[in-house]
């Protein structure tokens, strides 16, 4: 307020001073009021999140892109975990049962879906919809990495960039492979989603186009992935080649399939486990089963057979969890005299099981069907419930009875045995797991050889597996598609994405009708493709998305 400084010569009437005072007061007050607003309000209102990751901040350097890739591996691991990222309804149900060698031992919705089909196989099925959603989430995550890798401001070497994009494209192929096996023609989304490119007019791309996208992604991965990695969980060139072999077989490019499968096998990096090794080498067991034991799974742990190993760890952030044992092993402890134990591999709740066809495929000397691979007997270990006339340590034989639900005496696989000694009945398991083994690559090679009219070579390829397993060798005349499918089951039961193999070879419906007692009366041709989720059809507001036939 500076009115007192006015020139004394100037005639300043009281009225003027009063007016000035009023003015100054008003200005002063107005300044006070506007002050908090005026100091750069745009800055005040700009958000600087401190605790969340946003895309623009993450994909700026190699570490950020690696974090993006790690999430893709997490998604792969989800196959062997529950529908809601929890301990129930393992997603692997979708390709494991409702096949010739797998059926639902239980009556929860996912098992019923693949045993009863019919009305349960509908477009609102939460389980299959969850599977679909996970795949497209993975695809968007991969697309984001692929798109943002072209940002010229990212600081990295061209080699790093190529390898990152190769991993992302392989993962995208992994997701589309699941999708097109399960749903056939599916929408192709190859761009990062943003608020600006929401679409309501998706088309379903023909299965062949989807396969070509998969193949292109895999070819890029094959060209740009390293042959080996010091990180035991990382995908390598062989993973791309293995999947390429399978895709070419599906397309009928058998010669290309042979080249890819052969590339893996003759790389010199992979060979079958033929001798005992690892953490339990001194205990009873077989070379074949050694490779499934936690501590033996990774290449760094002496496993020469594994091509892709899923990584788990207990009590480590990012350590994940799997429910393979929980899902595949029966509730054996509900038999009198039995209790859950580490020796028995931990607790199962018998959701998924191997059919009689799958259990009865083995010759007497085949270790893949023997006690170390499939539980043929238990030893009584629960004094509290011991049946009359039995003592601890007596044998309780499992029984291959006609398939029925909740059969606690049924043999189950031991590939996924794992128990925490401090929590024997725990739900989840935290041991590493083989995801792709070169044994399967051999089987793809054999199939390619057979389909090119070379059963002799196919028999020789198969005999490599049979010799390791202690099974009797076969001859060229034994080699048929049916035999290869049997051999795949013998080698890969509970590992194989069986439904996909049968779909790929066009044998799904006939073999389900033939071997799956629960599903055979109800399964129909339409069930070879799952219905597109209703929410996806409903969200396609401006274009009709056709449903798969029969739904």
């Amino acid at each position, binding site marked *: 307020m500076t009115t007192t400084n006015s020139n004394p010569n100037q005639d300043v009437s009281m009225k003027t001073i009063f007016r000035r005072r*009023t003015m100054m007061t008003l200005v002063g007050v107005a300044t*006070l009021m506007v002050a908090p607003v005026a100091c750069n309000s745009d800055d005040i209102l700009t*958000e600087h999140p*401190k*605790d969340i990751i946003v895309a623009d901040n993450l994909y700026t350097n190699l570490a950020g892109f690696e*974090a993006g890739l790690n999430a893709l591996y997490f998604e792969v691991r989800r196959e062997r975990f529950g529908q809601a990222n929890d301990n129930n309804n393992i997603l692997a149900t979708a390709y494991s049962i409702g096949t010739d060698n797998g059926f639902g031992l239980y009556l929860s919705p996912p098992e019923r879906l693949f045993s009863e089909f019919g009305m349960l196989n509908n477009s609102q099925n939460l389980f299959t919809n969850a599977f679909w959603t996970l795949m497209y989430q993975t695809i968007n995550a991969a697309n984001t990495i692929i798109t943002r890798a072209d940002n010229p401001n990212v600081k990295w070497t061209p080699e790093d960039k190529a390898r990152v994009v190769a991993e992302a494209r392989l993962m995208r192929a992994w997701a589309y492979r699941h999708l097109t096996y399960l749903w056939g023609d599916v929408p192709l989304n190859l761009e990062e989603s943003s608020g600006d490119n929401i679409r309501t007019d998706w088309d379903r791309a023909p299965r062949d186009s989807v396969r070509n996208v998969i193949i292109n992604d895999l070819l890029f991965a094959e060209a740009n992935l390293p042959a080996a990695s010091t990180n035991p969980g990382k995908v390598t060139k062989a993973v791309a080649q293995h999947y390429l072999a399978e895709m070419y077989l599906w397309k009928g490019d058998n010669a290309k399939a042979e080249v890819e499968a052969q590339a893996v096998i003759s790389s010199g990096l992979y060979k079958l486990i033929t001798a005992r090794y690892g953490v339990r080498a001194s205990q009873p067991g077989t070379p074949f089963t050694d490779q499934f034991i936690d501590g033996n799974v*990774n290449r760094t742990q002496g496993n020469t057979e594994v091509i892709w190993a899923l990584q788990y760890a207990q009590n480590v952030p*990012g350590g994940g969890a799997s429910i393979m044992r929980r899902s595949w092993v029966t509730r054996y402890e509900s038999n009198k005299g039995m209790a859950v134990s580490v020796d028995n591999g931990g*607790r199962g709740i018998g959701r998924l099981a191997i059919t009689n066809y799958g259990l009865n495929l083995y010759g007497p000397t085949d270790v893949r069907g023997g006690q170390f691979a499939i539980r043929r007997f238990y030893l009584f270990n629960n004094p509290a419930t011991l049946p009359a006339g039995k003592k601890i340590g007596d044998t309780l034989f499992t029984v291959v009875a006609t398939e029925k639900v909740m059969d606690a005496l049924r043999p189950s696989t031991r590939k996924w045995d794992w128990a925490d000694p401090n929590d024997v009945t725990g739900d989840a398991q935290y041991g590493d797991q083989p995801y792709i083994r070169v044994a399967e690559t051999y089987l793809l090679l054999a199939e390619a050889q057979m389909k090119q009219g070379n059963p002799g070579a196919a028999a020789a390829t198969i005999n490599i597996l049979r010799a390791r397993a202690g099974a009797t060798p076969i001859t060229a005349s034994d080699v048929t598609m049916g035999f290869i499918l049997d051999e795949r089951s013998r080698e890969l039961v509970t590992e194989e994405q069986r439904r996909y193999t049968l779909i790929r070879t066009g044998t799904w419906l006939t073999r389900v009708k033939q071997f799956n007692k629960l599903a055979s009366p109800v399964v129909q041709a339409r069930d070879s493709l799952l219905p597109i989720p209703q929410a996806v059809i409903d969200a396609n507001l401006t274009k009709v998305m056709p449903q798969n036939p029969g739904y």
Partner: protein
Amino acid sequence: MSMLLAVLVAPQIEAQQITVKGTIVGADGSGPVASATVVVQGTTIGTLSDQQGAFTVRVPGPNVSLVISRIGYVRQTVPLNGAATLTIRMTRTTVALSDVVVVGYGSQARSDITGSVASVKPERLEEKPNVSVSQAIEGATPGVTVTTNSAGAEPSIAIQVRGRNSISASTSPLVVVDGIPYYGNLAEINPSDIASIEILKDASAAAIYGSRGSNGVVLVTSRKGSVGKPKVSYSAYTGTQRIANLPTLMNAQQFADFKCVRIRTSPTQDCSTTLTATEKTGLANGTDTNWGRIGTRDGNQMQNDLSISGGSTDTKYYLGGTVLAVRGVALNDNFNRSTVRLNLDQVVRPWLKLGTSTQAARTKRDGVPVNFTTAFFSNPLISPYDANGNVILVPWPEDPITNNALENLSVIDNDQNKRIFSSNYLQADIPAIKGLSYRVNAGIDLASRNLGRYFGRNTQTGLTAGGMSILSNTSRTDWTVDNLLLYKRVLGRHSFDLTGLASEQSNNLETDGLRGQGYPNDVLGYRSNLPLLLVPGDSVVQSKLLSQMGRLNYGYDGRYLLTLTSRRDGYSGFGRNNKYGTFPSVALGWNVSNESFFPWQQSVDALKLRFSYGKNGNQAIRPYQTLSQLDDRSYLNGDAPAPGYIPVTLGNPNLKWETTLSRNIGLDLSMWQGRMTATVETYSSRTSDLLLRRSISSVQGISSITQNIGKTANKGFEMELGIVPLRHGTFEWNTNLNLSVNRNKIVDLYGDQTDDIGSGWFIGQPIDVNYGYVFDGIFQAGDDIAKSAQPKAKPGDVRVKDVNGDSKIDALDRTFIGSLQPKYTAGLTNSIRFARVTFSTFFNTVQGVTRSNQLLGTNQVFTDVRRNTVYRIYWTPETPINTYPSNSNTSNPLGVPFYEDASFIRLKDITLSYDIPSDFAKRFGGESLRLYVNGRNLWTRTKWTGLDPELDAQRNVPLEKVVTGGLTVRF
């Protein structure tokens, strides 16, 4: 409280019977007060004042006191001190047209209000076992829906003003406590300290809060001191809580029979083969566990409240302390609250005043309540306890994945919250301009929550994890600074009231969490420093709001009123392209009864017409919602963590507030000196730019995105009617009825009039609908099933209505079932006073609601029947009912839900109180003493067969009946 006594004539000292003459007038100069009750204290001698406010009473001596009371006025005790003639000035209490009402950034006489401002009657706040201020609002005013979503020691309560205009954003009103926006749990404010609650319902009233106004505004004002000697008030109550209702679950034998029928493979199968060994033992031993009962107890509720208030013309104070303890009906469900409040107003200089309203609160919610979802599903053949009465970890060994419902009793849980909420002001008159003043409001809200929880190996979670701890510290630091310029001037017949605001608000919520697992033992619980794994979790949520607001209230001759308001809000959470929004409104009022031509001056006290129109916003965008976010999906490199992130949300830089344009027409009427009052209002609103989490094709990897799309509309009618049907001598009956009708509908979703079936949103329908397959009876043995729409059904299966008649059942057969939107809601208060006894009841009702009853679901027991459910009669060939299917996993393959009428009438509160004669109270040095009993939720009438028609989840903590008894002493 101003209580004035004027002695006009020198005392006449005579023995025994004395005639006292008096006149009762309104303290606000409103003239004589008729029909007031005058009683000689401690006797039944009494009379009523006449139309001129005059009364004559013969009293037994010169030193007795008169108790003067009248509905709508503060009850007062006047010592005669020998006087034979007196003038008594009474102050109004309840809402009447002459009250001063808090309207936000100031207050106004009710007669000057142009918008829709509802006041909660003070009796809803007094002598009721309110844990939260929200409970006082339930059913109390029209247009405000308060729903108890879940019961318990601290019920979860939702407030909604004038229906739902937002589909996915918040529908909760803005809560303002003593002028400062309040976020978080209202149960952390002590209801005993509250003087008034106002609800701003229409666009004009709420426009002062601009982008936060469209859901209405709840203004909570705490008690202030008043001039006079210090007044001390002590009140206390204690009471019990009991379960209001438990659905009838199957008992042991019923469950065994049910299980047998459900899972046996042939009708001749021996039922004992369907039971597991433990179940068989349970059946043989007569185990019959009523899990619902076992999980509950007789709860109790207790409160002690002491306050002192008073002041001089320059200093006014209120100091109050309250301790509340609630033990809910669910085991381990506890709520404790202690608060201290100091409200102080000080005139520093004639032109300068300042003050504070500050509450410090500590709330404790120790203990994890029994899991009622598990309890409702638990097997009655299984006991939760071992032979020694200890809770068993796995009560049913054959089903080891189902936890003991009582397991939470073993969890160590310390959960305490400390909060200081302080609203302060400084107001200075600006010299030179008469009527102009400057005010600054500074509010601060400092809160912290400390949670320590430990799951030992006596819990499933703890066993799996090797002991698991959860530590979480949350701290809230919110502040608000309002700069206000106020100008109030009356020039002849013109009155002006101008308010200018510049405000900045900052909200900061920070949580540091730590989860530990793999402890060597359970000895130290979460205080052990030796877990194998520690997973930190951290969150920081910050937002800023910059606002300017202007309001003009203009009145001409007390007849014509005009309110113009506009607020401009800038909010950090809005997308970067839309940071600021402006919200203008206009309102007009006409006090018809003040017109000289108004013909019914004798009977009509006041008649006012109101109209308003304006725009409000709903700011409800969470901070950072406009950015593309990624979530943690970490993996491993060997056994080392490898951080991973995956896109989970799609950003949208254009995201902004929702806009509601609304119109309100109201009429206020008061007749026969307030013997009848009525407010009738009708409104309509249209909301656009809805913040919609729109379902998008999951092909994009993310299944939804938030956009400003879609439109809704609401219209409604509200009425509040207060009548004094009977008043005679010391008998008075008051009744108050409020009624609300609201209809909302979706006008558009994505701009193309397309329904969104996936989200359950349909054009032209209310936002909340029941949509799905329709139950159409049961297939019977004689039906031609093969030719029906479900050719594979069996007799006893649910027949699904073939809505479109195409002879097959598919998604096109889904349709609308009943209405989730009430036809109307109402509240009815009756209060009858006879001499010293007051009896009051408060009913509220919600009518015309249809909901699916989860308890009637057919497929809830798991295929191998590991869960219990309610007892039902099932279809069998012998009892071919048409209402419920056969007892089978497959009899309802589409899971068609069963709907019921969820309308109800509830006796929410019933209170009986008694004023002890004052000579008795005086023996204890008191001025007055009142005793009361209150019953809450004692009676409910409904057709609903579930837990409770008001609660969301039907397998949850049951609603409680509360009976309390208490006293209030004033000194």
